[in-house]
């Protein structure tokens, strides 16, 4: 029994996958658990495993092809098995198993063409390319689309049969007068037109307007390098498609507003230095400033359930998450991915640091498993390392907020009435107003700010 292999759904958001490489050739034996191919999804490149034993009878799609979830991509079965019903027309040449002749196609060719006249054509028989209107039923030719219009741009009304005859005789329906109701062109009109055309002497047809010679105008010459294309083409990758779809959907459906706050991070910077000295001594992962922010957000989210929520209009509900999973946007060559730190509120800074680093590394190698980039309840995005002072981010659906983190900058601050050098950082919270109202967003930011300004609380 041949088994069809279909494009599996390898991530929550996947709609189609690209078959990036076949790892098993047609005709090779496979057993359950063997990796048949690699599939590039919107998020990662994943292995496609076989669940059945047999021979890979047919690779239905080629490397590089993208197909939607559920589409047939391969067939596994017994050697020599007839799989034409599974693969349809494409199957004829599919006999990967060195079968002497694929049954389906062989017969048709070997059938000697009979010289005897064909029996009375049956309606359902193979369509013969019978040209005229009252022949037998033949396969419908695609109609010219859209239907023609007359000189004034009105749709030309013609019976299906009249259109067909016109198409077969290259008659422009716009030139034919219709005698049917409301000027409908019917068979007799087209036939009459054809007859007239044939009877008429070679029509002294209006000469096709000759191209009028260009007036000799001095063209300014821009020295565009000849033959050079105006742009380079690049196929839109799965990841880019997903980014485009999800972010457009977010901006489209979630009414965003933005709250920016400047945070004095002098103490946090000092704390981090102290912690990292310890970490170095103990051989632990160094803590990045971003880890402090992750921790601050995670702890704050506890007190602000609407910021850690999802708006689910289809269900008529808002889901306030009981757990805190923080997505961290990571730029990679192909685009962007947000690995998720699960239960970030319950993890110590060292653990957060180690996990974030490992996930970011795997993200850059596109090695993340779906469960490692799905299920965030809140997201942060940090462009501080690029010298960005502040920016606004687009909410990562179905989150209700995202925190955009700017650079830590040296700036004068007022301390006890004195202007002194200080370190500040601007963060901007993008909120989905359907869930998080202004005051709620501001309260959340205030909590984040207080954690970072008194960072010892992060350690408690």
């Amino acid at each position, binding site marked *: 029994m041949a088994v069809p292999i279909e494009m599996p759904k390898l991530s929550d958001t996947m709609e189609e996958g690209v078959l990036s490489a076949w790892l098993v050739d047609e005709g090779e034996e496979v057993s359950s658990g063997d990796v048949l191919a690699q599939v590039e999804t919107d998020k990662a490149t994943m292995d496609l495993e076989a669940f059945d034993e047999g021979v890979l009878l047919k690779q239905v799609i080629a490397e590089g092809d993208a197909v939607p979830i559920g589409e047939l991509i391969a067939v596994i079965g017994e050697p020599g098995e007839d799989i034409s019903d599974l693969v349809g027309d494409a199957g004829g040449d599919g006999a990967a198993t060195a079968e002497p002749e694929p049954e389906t196609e062989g017969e048709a060719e070997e059938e000697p063409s009979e010289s005897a006249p064909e029996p009375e054509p*049956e*309606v*359902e028989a193979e369509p013969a390319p019978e040209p005229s*209107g*009252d*022949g*037998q*039923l033949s396969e*419908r*030719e695609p109609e010219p689309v859209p239907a023609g219009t007359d000189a004034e741009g009105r749709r030309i009304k013609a*019976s*299906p*049969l*009249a*259109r*067909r005859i016109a198409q077969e005789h290259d008659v422009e329906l716009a030139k034919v007068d219709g*005698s*049917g*109701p409301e000027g409908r062109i*019917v*068979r*007799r009109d087209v036939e009459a037109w054809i007859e007239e055309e044939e009877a008429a002497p070679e029509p002294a047809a209006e000469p096709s307007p000759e191209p009028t010679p260009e007036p000799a105008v001095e063209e300014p010459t821009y020295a565009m390098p000849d033959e050079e294309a105006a742009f380079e083409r690049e196929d839109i990758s799965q990841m880019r498609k997903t980014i485009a779809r999800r972010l457009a959907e977010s901006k489209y459906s979630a009414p965003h507003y933005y709250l920016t706050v400047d945070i004095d991070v002098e103490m946090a910077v000092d704390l981090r230095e102290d912690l990292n000295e310890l970490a170095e001594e103990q051989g632990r992962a160094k803590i990045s400033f971003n880890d402090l922010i992750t921790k601050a957000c995670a702890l704050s989210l506890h007190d602000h359930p609407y910021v850690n929520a999802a708006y689910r209009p289809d269900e008529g509900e808002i889901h306030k998450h009981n757990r805190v999973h923080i997505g961290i946007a990571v730029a990679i060559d192909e685009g962007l991915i947000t690995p998720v730190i699960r239960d970030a509120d319950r993890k110590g800074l060292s653990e957060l640091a180690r996990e974030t680093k490992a996930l970011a590394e795997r993200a850059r190698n596109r090695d993340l498993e779906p469960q490692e980039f799905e299920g965030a309840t809140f997201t942060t995005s940090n462009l501080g390392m690029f010298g960005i002072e502040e920016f606004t981010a687009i909410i990562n659906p179905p989150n209700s907020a995202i925190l955009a983190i700017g650079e830590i900058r040296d700036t004068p601050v007022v301390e006890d009435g004195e202007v002194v050098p200080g370190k500040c950082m601007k963060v901007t919270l993008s909120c989905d107003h359907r869930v998080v109202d202004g005051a709620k967003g501001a309260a959340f930011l205030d909590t984040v700010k207080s954690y970072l300004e008194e960072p010892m609380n992060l350690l408690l």
Partner: protein
Amino acid sequence: MATLQFREALREAMTEEMERDDDIFLIGEEVAEYDGAYKVSKGMLDQFGHDRVIDSPISELGFAGLGIGAAMNGLRPIVEFMTFNFSFVAFDQVINNAPNIRYMSGGQFDIPIVFRGPNGAAGQLGATHSNSTEALYSNFPGLKVVSPSIPDDGKGLLKTAIRDDDPVVFLESELMYGMKREVSEESDYTIPLGSARVAREGDDVTIVAHSKSYHIAMDAAEQLEEKGYEAEVIDPRTIKPLDIETIVESVVKTNRLVVVDESNPFTSVASEITHQVQDRAFDYLDAPILRVTAPDTPAPYAPNLMDEYMPGADETVDKCLRVMYAQ
């Protein structure tokens, strides 16, 4: 060829089949002692006795169900409804049990039963006794629906229906029982279900019509001939399975179709034929498909209104001229 009334042709079919197969019996109101409300079963009680020609009480739901039970147990009942208007009180048996038992039992039971009787309007009978049921019964998978227009077809098709192992709804007409036409005397004369009859050939327009409407179509075709047009008339004979191939073949030749169907128009046999033809022969149509049907109202009683209500040859001619753009 013998010249027989429609009722005689049907009686011959039943009698011949009952002589051939002892498992067949006829049951219905007045079928035995009274020789049938329309004398279709005249003399059959004398020939076959009370065991095989059975007068039922006025209880359609009961005797239709009895027939289905008998069929499940290996007999081959012919259940006569005095008219198909009365089949509605047996609706559950006819539409829910008869066609579904084979399917729901995984093929364990054949239901070789024929429900027969007159169908459609028959003069001044009023709204409740003038229903056309062919579209209704054709809608249920598992039922075959036969509706002959001439005695010869009536005989050949009824014999086939009785031999069929699935339930068949066999629709006759009060107004045609007395119609005398030639009937084949061939022994064991049967006509397969699902095969249409091209009653008249022509190149200009196709008219499809069954049962009484067929005769309207033939009248219309004669009028059209006087005007110089050749109509092709096709009687599908079996509504389901429908011989759509024959109809499509004709439309591919004539490029025009008028369907005459005395039923109410909404979701009628005419609607179905129209759909199937446009689906299969769209590019061969030179005009919209037109129908000649009863209006979408209950049947009236007053004779002048009834004349207006029923489809007629003039209206058919008129619609044929329209699809030929000949008006």
